[in-house]
Structure formats: C-alpha cells, structure tokens
C-alpha cells in the first residue's frame, strides 16, 4: 500500500512542478501557452539522449532544463510581440512539431520505439527501494522550485509580470520593457517544465513520443485553474487532486465492471465533471480569491 502511495505521489510531484511552470506563465503573466508539453518533452528527451550517449547524468539534466528554457526563448521571440491568441496557436503547433519530430527522426530518438536503459540519479548507490529515493528527490525539487518561484513573484519583478497580465499598455506606459518580462517568464516556465520532463523519464524509465501528447498540456491547465490561477499552493493542491484521482483510479479497474477503454474514458469524464462543478460553485479555483472575479476591468 505504501509503495502504491509513493508511486502516485511521485507522479503528483512531477505534475506539480510541471504546472508551477505554467502558472508562472499563465497565472502571473497572462501568457496562454497551449504547448507546455513540448518543453516537458525537450527536457525528458535531452536528459535521456545525452545520458545514453555517455554524458554524466547531472550534465544531461542541466542540459535538458537549459534547452527547454532556450526553446522558450525561440518560441517567444516571434510570438510575444503579437496578441495573446497568437502565442496560444504557435505554442500548440510547437508542441506538436516537437512530438512529431521525436516520432519521425528515428536516427536520433528511435521514434515510436522510445528510449530506455538510461541512468537514474544515484541509482547504483541507493540501498533501499529506488522509488523512495525518487520520491524524496521529486519533492525536494518541488520544494525548491516552489520557494524560488514564490520569491520571484513576490518581488518587484513579479509585480511587473502581474501588471502585464492585467494590462500591458500600462506596464509600457510606466517604462517596463514588456517583451523582456514575457520572454523571461516563458523561459523560466519552460525550463521548469524541462526539469519535470527529466523526472518523468526517471519515473517511467522509458520515454516515447506517446507520453507527450497535447492532452498533457491540458492536464497542467486543469491543475492550474482548479487550484486557482496565480496561487502556487493552489497549483500543488490541484496536482494532488487531479493526478491522485487520475492515477489512483487506474487501479480501480479490477473492481469496476467496465472494459479498460471505457474506464479510461470515464476517468476523463469525471475530471471534466469536476471542472464544470468547480466553475459553477468555486470559479476562482480551490485557493483563488473570489473578489478577483468580481472586479470590473
């Protein structure tokens, strides 16, 4: 039982990290990133590919994080000067390009076969069940990421992000280089997604392009909205609710008289229903502030 809880918790932790990256972009800066999973994939594949080609694991992970952030820059440069909706369109396209690249460039990624056989941090020297160690590693990282992002959003820098979310014309009228801040938010959010990608690979010990479908982006969105946008604690709570439900119910299969594909559909339906109910009765999210919704723009 405890092993089972640890396994679920690791997934919760990874998605919490992933969604905190999105919360920085959407919750605090107002950027609509519909391609967050693309950065998760870059982080995961870079870590794994570098390690498989002989690089030490810490370097591989660092490269994954940096490369994900760098792609945030590449996607941001042409789009962040444009209206919000362009970013949404370009990012969703970007994440699909990444996935299709991984699927088709078999010389590099082995395509649909996926990648396995890579190292995991300290795996050789951990004397107990490795999942326990991974649990500590993921939650330790989550704590660090949470504290760093909290520090950032409560700084003058974070204040500028919020002003951009509210009305970027005001931010420029006050002398803020809006473009620079948006790029920084997107790069940091993407780098955080890259880190989540590395952990995702360690947890699954196998990655393939199937792990990086657009739906993963929307799980992050559900987590952020459910928890309450611009509340990092809410994001963590959202990750607990969504992923423990989604992953937990996977094991209920034996007790429910439904075929596995029906069960899978049912689980998504319940999440959808949960969101609808939330929007009806607590539209600000679990930890959001209700006053914010009633303010005239």
């Amino acid at each position, binding site marked *: 039982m405890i092993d089972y809880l640890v396994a679920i918790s690791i997934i919760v932790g990874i998605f919490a990290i992933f969604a905190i990256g999105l919360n920085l972009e959407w919750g605090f800066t107002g950027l609509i990133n519909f391609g967050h999973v693309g950065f998760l994939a870059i982080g995961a594949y870079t870590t794994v590919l570098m390690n498989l080609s002989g690089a030490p694991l810490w370097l591989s992970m660092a490269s994954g994080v940096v490369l994900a952030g760098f792609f945030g820059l590449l996607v941001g440069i042409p789009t962040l000067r444009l209206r919000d909706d362009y970013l949404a369109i370009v990012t969703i396209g970007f994440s699909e390009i990444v996935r299709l690249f991984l699927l088709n460039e078999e010389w590099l990624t082995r395509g649909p076969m996926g990648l396995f056989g890579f190292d995991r941090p300290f795996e050789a020297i951990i004397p107990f069940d490795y999942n326990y160690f991974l649990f500590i590693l993921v939650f330790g990282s989550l704590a660090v990421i949470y504290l760093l992002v909290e520090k*950032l959003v409560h700084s*003058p820098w974070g*204040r500028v992000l*919020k*002003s951009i979310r509210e009305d970027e014309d005001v931010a*420029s009228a006050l002398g803020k280089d809006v473009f620079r801040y948006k790029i920084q938010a997107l790069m940091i959010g993407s780098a955080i997604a890259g880190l989540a990608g590395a952990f995702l690979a360690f947890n699954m010990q196998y990655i393939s392009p199937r792990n990086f479908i657009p739906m993963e982006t929307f799980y992050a969105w559900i987590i952020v909205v459910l928890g309450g946008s611009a509340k990092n604690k809410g994001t963590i709570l959202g990750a607990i609710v969504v992923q423990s439900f989604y992953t937990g119910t996977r094991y209920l299969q034996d007790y429910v008289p439904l075929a596995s594909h029906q069960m899978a559909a049912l689980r998504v339906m319940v999440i959808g229903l949960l969101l609808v109910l939330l929007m009806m009765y607590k539209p600000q999210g679990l930890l959001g502030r209700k*006053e*914010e919704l009633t*303010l005239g*723009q």
Partner: protein
Amino acid sequence: MVHEILKVLDAKKYFGGVMAVDGASFSVEKQTIRGLIGANGAGKTTLFNLITGYYKLDSGKIFFGDERVDQLPTFKKALIGMVRTFQLTKALSRMTVLENLLLGPKIQSGEHIHNIFFRPKMVANEEAISVEKALETLDFFDLMHMKDDYAGALSGGQKRLLEMARALMTDPKMLLLDEPFAGVNPTLALKLVKRIKELKERGMTFLIIEHDMPLITEVSDTLSFMNHGRIILEGPPEDVKEDPRVLDAYLGDGA
C-alpha cells in the same frame, strides 16, 4: 529663454482611408501646462497615442528635448520622462492600489532576477523607499484608506486619481493626461488643478486633454484647439475659448 520640451512636426496618421491626425504641428515649452481641446473625434487621443508611441506615425517627426523619439518604443519614452494616463482608465484590477503605485519608480533593481537572489538587501531598501513615497502620494490623492484594496474595486473617479498617482511615481519630466478630471468630484478636481500647478513650479511639463472648459482654462497656460486632425488655434485660454471656431465645435452642431 524658452526651451521646448516636446515638438511635433506635421504628424500624420491614417486608419484605412480615414485621416485621424492630418498634419498636426505644435510644441510645448518646458515647465508649462498645455491644454488640448477639440470636439470628439478631432484626433486628440490619437495624437496622444502617436506622441507616446502606441501608434506609429505615418509621417512627421516628434522630438522630446533634443532627441527625436518617434521611433522609440513606449517604454523607452517613459524611461526618458514622458509618461501618460489613459482616457479609459486602466487600473490594474487584480493588484492592490499600493502595488499599482509601486510599479511607478523607474529604477528598481528588484525588477532584475539576479538582484532578487544576490542583492536582496539593496532590493529591500529600494522597496522601502518606494513604499514611503507611494504612501505619501496616496495620502495626497485621498486613496490612503484603499491602499490594500484591489484597484478594480475603486470607483471611476478614484481610478483616474490612481492613474495620475501611479504616473507621478515615475518622476516624469512631462505628463500627458487624457481627461484627468472626468468623473472626479469638483472639490478634488480643484485640488488636482492646484497640485498640477505646484508640480509645474517644480519643473514638470503637462499636456492635458480635457472637455471641462472651466477647469482646462483654469489649469492651462496655453490652449491648443484641434479640429479634423490639425491644431488650428493656439493661445491664451481666455482668447481661445472665445474663438468662434471653438464655440462652434463645443456649442454649435460642429462641422
């Protein structure tokens, strides 16, 4: 000797086939208050948007001090001291009133990520100074009691005050105010007029769009009258407001 702080030369802006600003030229002397009047649709706000860089000029030139600024992005103009407010107020709704003001100061080391982690003391010190200044400003604008409320909860008039307060936090050389008195109660409006004159004495320059004739006459040193995208009349407020073309635009059925 009179020194011009803002000079607009033959500014033109089309929207499709419509000429919104049709060769407007004027200049504002340093440390003066210039009123800009004209009927709705005369091009006043478009002219503001051109000066502050929200729109790009189709032709013409704009100088701020000795520097040509028509190619500069808005935020750079703000950094060299040209700051505006908006006709439709833009309170940053989901931020507190105090946070709105704290955005103002131009040099904030805490707006750079590395300083947040490596120079926390410097960031904290600057922040304390900004807070003090913000509280003084809020006190003047009668917004002190709202400082921790969301800006979106303010009334229309209060949002206008908030905008002016926020703009002043940047220590501008020149403030461009788009209908600063609309929706502000008469007592406070007079207080604002007084404040604007005080700020002028301390060296600030103002360009103000306003429809309230008594107030704009009271506050301005010079009035410019805009019609069909051009400045067609300029002079002492008392003269300009009696000009038949102005009377016609405001009282008659226009042209």
